[in-house]
C-alpha cells in the first residue's frame, strides 16, 4: 500500500498526462508502416491502466493526491486534486477506458483507414480524468468543455452520415445549454466565495440566502442532470450514444454520463450541504421517472445500441434514487442516529451503482459492437443464434445482462439491494416528514417495476440476439471477434462477477467515501455482508446481504445439479415442436413481438400505434404480403421538446423582423440603446 501511495503522489499523474499526450500525437500521425491508431490506442490503454491504479491507490489509504501544472494569467491552469469520491470515478474511468481501448485495438486492426477524430479519444479520457480531479471552477469548466467537445467529435466519427451529424449536433447543443446552467451556478458561488477554488465554495454556499442556494441547486440539477441523461433532460442520449463507435459508446454510457452524477454529489451534496426537503424530493422524482420511463423505452427498441442507451437513462435513474434518499436523510438531521445511517447507505448505493453500471454497461456496449461488426446489423430482429458462432461475446453479453437486471449474486444486485435498503429505511424513519417517507416508499414500487422491466428487456435482448435460429443470412454467417475484443469483454464480465461477490468489502470502502462526503464521523467496519460492513448499529436497517455465501451456495447447488441431471446423461436431439410443420426462423418470437404485452400493458404511457397492410392474391382471400409498422410515442419529446422547438423557431422569426439588413436602421438601434442606457445610468 505504501508503494501505491508513493506512486500516486509522485509519478502516476505525470505518467497519465504524458501517455495521453503521446497517444493524441500518435493518433494524428500519418498512416505509415506502423498503425498509428493501434499505437495511439495502446498508449490510451496504458494511460487508463495508470488511471485505474491511481484511483485504487487514492481510495485504499484514503489519501488525497494533488498535482499542479502551473498558472496562466493568475488562474491555476490545471490543478488536480483526487480524494476518495474522485477516486471512485477514476476507477470507473480506468476500468472502462482500459477495456474500451483494448477492444478498439482489436476492432481497428481490420479498418486501417484514416480517422480524423481518432485524436479526440485520448483527449476524451484525459478530460474525464480532469473533470474528476479539478479543484477549482475554472479548471472544472475547462475540462468539462473539453469533454463535451472531444466526445461530440467522437460521436461524429470518421465518416458522418446525416443521422450521425444530427445526433452530434443535438448533443452539442444540449450539452452547451447544460454548461451554461453550470456557468451561472458557479458564477454565483464564485462571487460569494471571492475565489474560484472549490475549497472556499462550501463556506460561501452556507452564507448564501436560502433562495440563492436553491437557485444554485436548480441550476446544478439542470446542468448535471443533462449530462447524466436524466429524464426530462435526456433527449440527446438515445440519439448520440448509438451512433458513436462502440468503444466510445461504452465510455460515454459507462463513464461520461457519470460526470453528471459526480457533479451532483460533489456540488449538490458535499459543497451545498443539506438543503430543504424539496431538493431531495426533486432528485428522487427525477430518479423514479428516469428509471421507469428509461427501461420502458428501452423495451420498445430493437436496435441493440439504442436499447442499451435507454438503459443508461434507467440506471442513472436508479443512481438518482440513491442520491435523492441521501439528500432527504442528510437534510433531516445531522445529529447522527438512524437518518444519518440511511443517508450513508443510500449514498453508498448510488456510488456503488455508478461503479457497477460503468462495468456492465461497458461490457454490453462492447458486445453490441462485436455483434454489429460480425453481422453488420444491430437490429435484434435480424440477429439470433449467435451463441454458437460467437461464444465469447454471447457469454460476456449474458453476464452483463444478468448484472444490469439486478440478479444475485452479480454486482448490479448488490447496489440495488443497498438502494432498496435506503428507500425502505427512509420510509420507516420517524424523523423524516410524512411526505418524504411516502415518496421513498412509492419509489420502492418504482424500483421494483424497473428491475422487473429490466429483466424483460434483457431476456429479450439476450434471447433474440444470441439464442435459437439466426433470423438473417448475415447472422448465420457471423464469426467470433478478434482476441483483443474478446479479452476486453471477458475482463469486464469477470469484474462484474468479482465485484458482485466482493460486494461487502467494496461497499465498505465506498462507505468511507460516503461518510466523508456527508461529513459524518467514520464508522467501524465489522462482520460479513454489506450492511454489516457499514456498521449494523443503524436502527431500521438490521438486514444483511452476504454475497459470498450466496455465490458459494448457488455454485454448489449448480454443480450438484449439473452433475446429477446433465453430465453423462443421454440426450436425443430432435426438431423443435411446431405443430407438425417444419420449423423455420420466422416461427420465432421477434424482439417486437416479445415486447408486445408490455406495449399493451403500459399503453397509456407508450401510446403505441400500428399500421398493418395486407395485400391479397388477386381474386382470393389469401394474403400475398403483410407489412407491419409499429411505433410508440415518446411523451417528453412530444410534449416538451417539440413545443419548445416550435416556440424557439417562432421567436427567431419574430426577432428576424428587426434584422432588416439596413445599416441606417442598425445605427438607429445603437443610438436608441445608448440613449436608454444613459437614461438608466443617470439615476
Amino acid at each position, binding site marked *: 500500500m505504501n508503494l501505491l501511495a508513493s506512486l500516486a503522489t509522485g509519478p502516476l499523474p505525470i505518467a497519465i498526462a504524458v501517455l495521453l499526450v503521446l497517444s493524441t500525437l500518435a493518433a494524428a500521425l500519418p498512416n505509415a508502416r506502423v498503425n498509428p491508431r493501434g499505437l495511439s490506442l495502446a498508449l490510451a490503454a496504458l494511460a487508463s491502466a495508470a488511471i485505474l491504479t491511481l484511483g485504487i491507490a487514492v481510495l485504499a489509504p484514503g489519501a488525497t493526491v494533488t498535482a499542479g501544472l502551473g498558472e496562466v494569467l493568475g488562474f491555476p491552469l490545471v490543478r488536480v486534486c483526487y480524494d476518495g469520491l474522485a477516486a471512485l470515478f477514476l476507477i470507473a474511468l480506468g476500468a472502462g477506458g482500459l477495456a474500451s481501448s483494448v477492444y478498439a485495438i482489436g476492432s481497428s486492426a481490420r479498418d486501417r483507414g484514416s480517422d480524423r477524430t481518432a485524436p479526440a479519444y485520448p483527449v476524451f479520457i484525459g478530460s474525464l480524468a480532469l473533470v474528476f480531479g479539478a479543484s477549482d471552477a475554472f479548471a472544472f469548466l475547462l475540462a468539462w468543455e473539453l469533454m463535451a467537445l472531444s466526445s461530440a467529435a467522437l460521436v461524429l466519427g470518421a465518416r458522418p452520415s446525416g443521422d450521425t451529424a444530427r445526433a452530434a449536433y443535438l448533443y452539442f447543443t444540449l450539452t452547451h445549454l447544460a454548461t451554461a446552467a453550470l456557468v451561472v451556478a458557479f458564477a454565483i458561488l464564485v462571487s460569494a466565495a471571492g475565489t474560484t477554488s472549490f475549497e472556499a465554495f462550501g463556506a460561501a454556499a452556507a452564507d448564501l440566502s436560502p433562495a440563492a442556494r436553491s437557485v444554485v441547486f436548480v441550476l446544478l440539477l439542470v446542468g448535471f442532470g443533462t449530462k447524466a441523461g436524466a429524464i426530462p433532460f435526456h433527449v440527446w442520449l438515445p440519439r448520440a450514444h448509438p451512433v458513436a463507435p462502440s468503444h466510445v459508446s461504452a465510455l460515454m454510457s459507462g463513464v461520461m454520463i457519470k460526470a453528471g452524477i459526480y457533479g451532483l454529489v460533489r456540488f449538490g451534496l458535499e459543497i451545498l450541504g443539506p438543503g430543504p426537503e424539496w431538493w431531495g424530493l426533486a432528485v428522487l422524482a427525477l430518479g423514479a421517472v428516469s428509471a421507469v420511463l428509461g427501461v420502458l423505452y428501452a423495451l420498445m427498441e430493437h436496435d441493440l445500441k439504442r436499447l442499451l442507451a435507454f438503459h443508461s437513462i434507467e440506471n442513472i435513474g436508479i443512481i438518482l434514487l440513491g442520491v435523492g434518499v441521501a439528500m432527504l436523510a442528510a437534510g433531516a438531521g445531522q445529529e447522527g442516529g438512524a437518518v444519518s445511517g440511511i443517508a450513508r447507505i443510500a449514498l453508498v448505493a448510488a456510488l456503488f451503482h455508478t461503479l457497477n453500471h460503468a462495468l456492465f454497461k461497458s461490457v454490453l456496449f462492447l458486445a453490441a459492437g462485436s455483434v454489429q461488426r460480425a453481422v453488420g446489423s444491430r437490429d435484434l430482429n435480424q440477429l439470433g443464434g449467435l451463441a454458437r458462432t460467437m461464444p465469447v461475446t454471447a457469454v460476456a453479453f449474458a453476464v452483463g445482462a444478468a448484472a444490469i437486471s439486478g440478479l444475485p449474486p452479480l454486482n448490479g444486485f448488490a447496489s440495488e439491494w443497498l438502494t432498496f435498503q435506503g428507500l425502505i429505511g427512509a420510509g420507516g424513519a420517524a424523523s423524516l416528514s410524512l411526505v418524504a417517507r411516502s415518496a421513498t416508499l412509492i419509489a420502492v414500487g418504482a424500483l421494483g417495476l424497473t428491475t422487473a422491466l429490466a429483466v424483460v428487456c434483457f*431476456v429479450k435482448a439476450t434471447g433474440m440476439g444470441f439464442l435459437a435460429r439466426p433470423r438473417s443470412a448475415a447472422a448465420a454467417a457471423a464469426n467470433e471477434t478478434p482476441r483483443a475484443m474478446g479479452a476486453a469483454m471477458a475482463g469486464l464480465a469477470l469484474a462484474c462477477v468479482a465485484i458482485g461477490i466482493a460486494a461487502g468489502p467494496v461497499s465498505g470502502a465506498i462507505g468511507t467515501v460516503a461518510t466523508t462526503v456527508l461529513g459524518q464521523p467514520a464508522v467501524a467496519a465489522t462482520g460479513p455482508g454489506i450492511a454489516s460492513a457499514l456498521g449494523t448499529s443503524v436502527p431500521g436497517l438490521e438486514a444483511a446481504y452476504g454475497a459470498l*455465501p450466496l455465490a458459494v451456495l448457488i455454485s454448489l447447488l449448480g454443480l450438484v445439479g449439473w452433475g446429477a441431471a446433465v453430465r453423462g446423461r443421454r440426450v436425443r436431439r430432435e426438431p423443435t*415442436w411446431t405443430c407438425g410443420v417444419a420449423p423455420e426462423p420466422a416461427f420465432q418470437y421477434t424482439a417486437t413481438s416479445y415486447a408486445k404485452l408490455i406495449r399493451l400493458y403500459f399503453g397509456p404511457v407508450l401510446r403505441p400505434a400500428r399500421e398493418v397492410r395486407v395485400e391479397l392474391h388477386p381474386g382470393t382471400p389469401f394474403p400475398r404480403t403483410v407489412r407491419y409498422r409499429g411505433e410508440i410515442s415518446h411523451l417528453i419529446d412530444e410534449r416538451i421538446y417539440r413545443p419548445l422547438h416550435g416556440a424557439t423557431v417562432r421567436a427567431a422569426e419574430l426577432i428576424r423582423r428587426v434584422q432588416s439588413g439596413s445599416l441606417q436602421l442598425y445605427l438607429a438601434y445603437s443610438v436608441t440603446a445608448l440613449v436608454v442606457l444613459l437614461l438608466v445610468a443617470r439615476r
Partner: protein
Amino acid sequence: MTDPTLDARIILGVAQVVLTLLVAPLLLGITKRVKARLQYRRGPDLLQPYRDLRKWWAKESVESDVAGPVSRAVPVVVLAATLAATLYIPIVAAWAPLDGWGDLVLVVGLMALARFALALGALDAGGAFGGMGSSREVAISTLVEPALLLALAGAAVAAGSTDLGTIAAHGAEAGTAWYTPALLLAAAAFAIVAVAETGHEPVDNPDTHLELTMIHEGMLLEATGPRLAMLTYAAELKVVVVIGLFAAAFLPAGVATALTPLALAVAIGAALGKLVLAAVILGLLDATLAKLRILALPGLLATASIVAAIGLATRLWLPA
C-alpha cells in the same frame, strides 16, 4: 427472542430444508385433488407428483436440434435459485437456515434470477410456444413485482427491518397487535399477486395443454426427462417460497421464537397447516375461476399495487 446456539441452528436448518423439500410436491397433489373433487372427478393420487418426478428423472432428455448449452444449464440454475430462496425464508422458526445472510429483497432477487433463466431457456429452442410463454411470464411479472415489494415494504417498515426472520419474530411476538389495517391491506395485495406468481387461475392454468393459452407450461414445452423434473420441482418449490414469504410477513402466528420442544412442535404444525391451506385455496381458485384475458390482467394485478400503496399510506398517515 434469544439467539439459539450454533448446534441448534444447524438442526433447525436441516429440519426446515427437509420439510420444505419433501412437502413441495405434496402441495401440488393437494391442489390437484381439491380441483378434481370440485369438478366431480376423483383426481390423481396425492403422491402422483412424486411419481412424476421419479419417472422423468429416469428418462432420457430430448432436446431441440437448435438448442445450445443454455437449455442444459437453465433447469439447473432455476432449481438452484429457487432452492436457495427457500433457505432465506423462516418457515418453521424465526431463524431461516441462512438467517442473517439475506433478506426479503434477496428472496425477490433470487426469484427474479429463476425467472430470468427460465424465460431465457424458453427462447433457446426457437419455437413459437416458448417465446409465447416466456414473453407472457415476464410481462406479468412486471405487474407482480411492484406489488410484491410494496406489500413486503409495509411489513418491513412495521418491523424496522427487511430481514425476514426479524419480521416474523416481531410479528409472532406482537400477537394480534401485528395485524393492523395497514398490514391486512398489504396482505391482501400480496395474496393477489401470489396467485399470479405461483401460476394459478385466474392468471394461468397449470393444467392446460392448449398451446395458445399456456404461460408457465409454454416455457416447459421443450423440456424433457431430468430437465422437466427439475423445472417442475422448481415450480413446486416456488409455491413454498411465495407462501413462505406471505406467512413470514403477514401470518407469522405460530412461528417459533424460542427453541422449546413445544414451540417447535407448534411451529412445524403451523407451517404445514399454512402450506396445506394455501394449496387448498389454490385448488379452489383453479376450480372456481375462469382464466382472465391476458390483456385484462393489469386490471387485477395493478389493483394489488394500489392496495399495497393504500396500505402504506394507512401505515404512515393514520395515527395508530
